[in-house]
């Protein structure tokens, strides 16, 4: 076997790529895992993990120099001193915004698995059926029953803290003990249940932070520092580095190659199969070819589709998977920054100890059952209650010793939350290649044209008003709705562009995430999503990836992929 041949190639080392590498190597395949950015070694390279607020010269706020270097990242919270070096270089990696699109990218081993919010929810049976029932876009080619055992499987390994709630709209799973609610949230949950006749629920957020040690994975349970974004030295949250990569390495079957930009899938038009990938070395700019029997594209939603658009262009002008007319289309995100906050009276003899990497969750309750709003689908809320700190106004204290004394004591309780809304797949929301703009390696860049449509705007009105109603029912005072700055992409939940479906004429992938036009190419990151649900998507990518790998390996054994 030539030394540039592997059984399988995985492109991208984030959440789904890490899972693909783990599953493929554990099934005995020799795997090449390609990552466009630098390596980050678990613990050793988490340079800021033990720093404190005062260790940052500007106390974690961005400087004008950082703002100039990151004109996109600066639009939201990810631009800070603590995570510098964890986001894609915007000068080397430009993209075109036909409309404003906030694309926050992590180009390094582990990708955004090191930076994610860790909220982990299952899609519901309703989510898989809604497109068909409402005649929107196309039907998912799978149903909840197809993916449920894979949710079980990935939850057990990743470690998801949560509670069994018995709700149809948010299926239960294989959970570790939950991260506790505080006493204000506990009481808010009771009041909401009562006020809405058991139809709305405030529950523990479900997060990929382990609340019991996993010695077999060398992971310690959460220490409640709430510094996940700096890389966890305890391996307490799920990331490629803490969980899937060590498992893949342990098999002896993995080769990890950082600084490897995949420029195209090499397509054999006679066999109608991929034969491998072309790689540009990010440091030397040299081009290499690697061959394999099967290729998994997990380069993150848009970059996976970028690779497809750049591949087999001699056969299809629009690239591999474009025969459907849907490659690059149906971009989705979760729209958010619509919520409310208010004061909570009392509980002044209560406080908390420790810093949670979690809060509460209110699952979707709109358009459930027979309800029909002036929009379809729904939204969930993420929020928390806490006591105010030094960064509050004390009306009667202005300057001096009394101010210092006042601010050194905790203030009253506040409760707040923001909705995460489902965004419908729309053919007009699309990405395409712009050959007039090139990145550092001379490659054409993506042009993005995405906007919210009427369904999302109508939903946002409910997202604000329902938040106000819920928090008032929860006992909040002076509750005020808020609408923050949101543009597509800001949810950092890019989905769609290479959707799964039942028909090669209207979808890019089949029910096992195979590209219709090249069955040995699998896409199992966010690109494959046929609809977006309103829940955070990463857990679904994990489950779809593990499911697709099992299918791929069985098909390989039967000789169906060659």
């Amino acid at each position, binding site marked *: 076997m030539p030394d540039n041949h592997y059984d399988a190639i995985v492109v991208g080392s984030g959440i789904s790529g890490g899972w693909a590498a783990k599953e493929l190597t554990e099934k005995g395949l020799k795997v090449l895992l390609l990552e466009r950015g630098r390596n980050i070694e678990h613990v050793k390279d988490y340079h800021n993990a033990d720093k*404190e*607020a*005062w260790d940052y010269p*500007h*106390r974690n*706020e961005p*400087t*004008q120099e950082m*703002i*100039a270097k990151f*004109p996109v990242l*600066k*639009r939201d919270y990810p*631009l800070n001193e603590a995570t510098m070096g964890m986001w894609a270089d915007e000068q080397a990696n430009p993209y075109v*915004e036909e*409309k*404003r699109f906030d694309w926050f990218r992590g180009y390094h081993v582990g990708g955004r698995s090191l930076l994610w919010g860790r909220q982990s929810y299952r899609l519901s049976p309703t989510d898989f059926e809604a497109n068909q029932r409402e005649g929107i876009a196309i039907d998912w080619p799978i149903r909840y029953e197809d993916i449920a055992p894979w949710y079980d499987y990935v939850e057990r390994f990743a470690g998801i803290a949560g509670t069994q709630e018995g709700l149809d709209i948010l299926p239960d799973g294989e959970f570790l003990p939950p991260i*506790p609610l*505080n*006493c204000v*949230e*506990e009481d808010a949950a009771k009041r909401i249940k009562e006020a809405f006749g058991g139809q709305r629920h405030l529950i523990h957020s479900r997060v990929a932070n382990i609340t019991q040690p996993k010695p077999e994975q060398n992971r310690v349970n959460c*220490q*409640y520092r*709430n510094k996940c974004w700096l890389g966890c030295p305890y391996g307490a949250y799920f990331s490629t580095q803490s969980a899937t990569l060590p498992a893949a390495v342990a098999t002896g079957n993995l080769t990890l190659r950082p600084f490897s930009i995949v420029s195209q899938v090499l397509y054999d038009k006679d066999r109608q199969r991929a034969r491998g990938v072309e790689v540009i070395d990010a440091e030397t700019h040299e081009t290499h070819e690697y061959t394999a029997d099967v290729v998994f594209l997990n380069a993150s939603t848009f970059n996976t589709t970028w690779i497809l658009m750049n591949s087999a262009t001699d056969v299809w002008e629009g690239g591999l998977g474009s025969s459907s007319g849907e490659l690059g289309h149906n971009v989705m995100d979760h729209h958010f920054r*619509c*919520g409310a*906050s208010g004061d909570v009276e009392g509980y*002044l*003899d*209560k*406080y*908390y*100890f*420790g*810093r949670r990497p979690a809060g509460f969750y209110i699952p979707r309750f709109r358009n459930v059952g027979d309800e029909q709003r002036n929009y379809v689908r729904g939204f969930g809320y993420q929020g928390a209650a*806490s*006591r105010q*700190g*030094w*960064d*509050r*106004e004390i009306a009667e204290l*202005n*300057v*001096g*010793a009394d101010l*210092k004394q006042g*601010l*050194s*004591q*905790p203030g009253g309780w506040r409760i*707040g*939350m923001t909705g995460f809304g489902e965004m419908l797949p729309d053919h007009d929301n699309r990405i395409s290649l712009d050959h007039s703009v090139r990145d550092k390696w001379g490659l054409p860049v993506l042009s993005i044209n995405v*906007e*919210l449509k009427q369904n999302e*705007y109508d939903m946002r009105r409910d997202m604000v008003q329902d938040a106000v109603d819920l928090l008032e029912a929860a006992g909040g005072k002076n509750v005020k709705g*808020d*609408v923050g700055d949101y*543009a597509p992409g800001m949810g950092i939940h890019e989905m769609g562009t290479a959707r799964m479906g039942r028909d090669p004429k209207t979808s890019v992938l089949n029910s096992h995430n195979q590209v219709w036009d090249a069955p040995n190419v699998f896409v199992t990151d966010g690109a494959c999503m046929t609809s977006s649900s309103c829940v955070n998507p990463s857990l679904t990518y994990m489950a779809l990836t593990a499911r697709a790998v099992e299918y791929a390996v069985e098909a390989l054994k039967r000789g169906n992929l060659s």
Partner: protein
Amino acid sequence: MNRRELLKLIALTTGTAMIGGKSLFAFSDAGQTSQPFSSQDVERLDELAETILPRTDTPGAKDAGVGVFMALFVSDCYTPSEREVFYFGLAQLEARSRASYQLDFMALSGEQRLELITELDREAMAHAQQQARREQPTPAEALTAETQTAQNQTAENQSSQEHADSEEALPHYFTMMKQLTLFGFFTSEVGATEVLRYEAVPGRYDGCAPYNGEPAWAT
């Protein structure tokens, strides 16, 4: 109680909104060199900060090096127009001191300093309240506005919008000084561990702990 009136610091669910940094004012016009602060400026900032947060039985602003922090933050994180407001404020501090007491700011007694700073605080508060009235759209207005701007929203006109915001929304210089004093102090090691409480590795979470008047958690 509108917290934005005073500090514009943290909105519970939407993250920080410091002046400078990534606030709405943070259009990017970096590249201009910042005017360095002299050591006298830093001493002046230290005294100003110490008046806002004096040493008592616990450390004060000077113990936390707030003057140096303010100078660094303004130099590196403020936009040029925000920096101008801040420099103007430093000059005003002197001018107001001389007008009211015929003395340099550094030569004022503690009482005089507190009196002057209290007056500036009142002015800054009034300025911020006026701005808040002008700036704050209701949620309904914000929802309507976002549907209207979406049609032609490109990255370019987004940033020019930020630019327009910045010109009229500049805060009072004393708001900057007070915000940086509080921020610099309570995020310093001295402020976080000796005035507030900090636990580096809590190891557990208790969401219903009894509270008996201890200092607040630093984070």
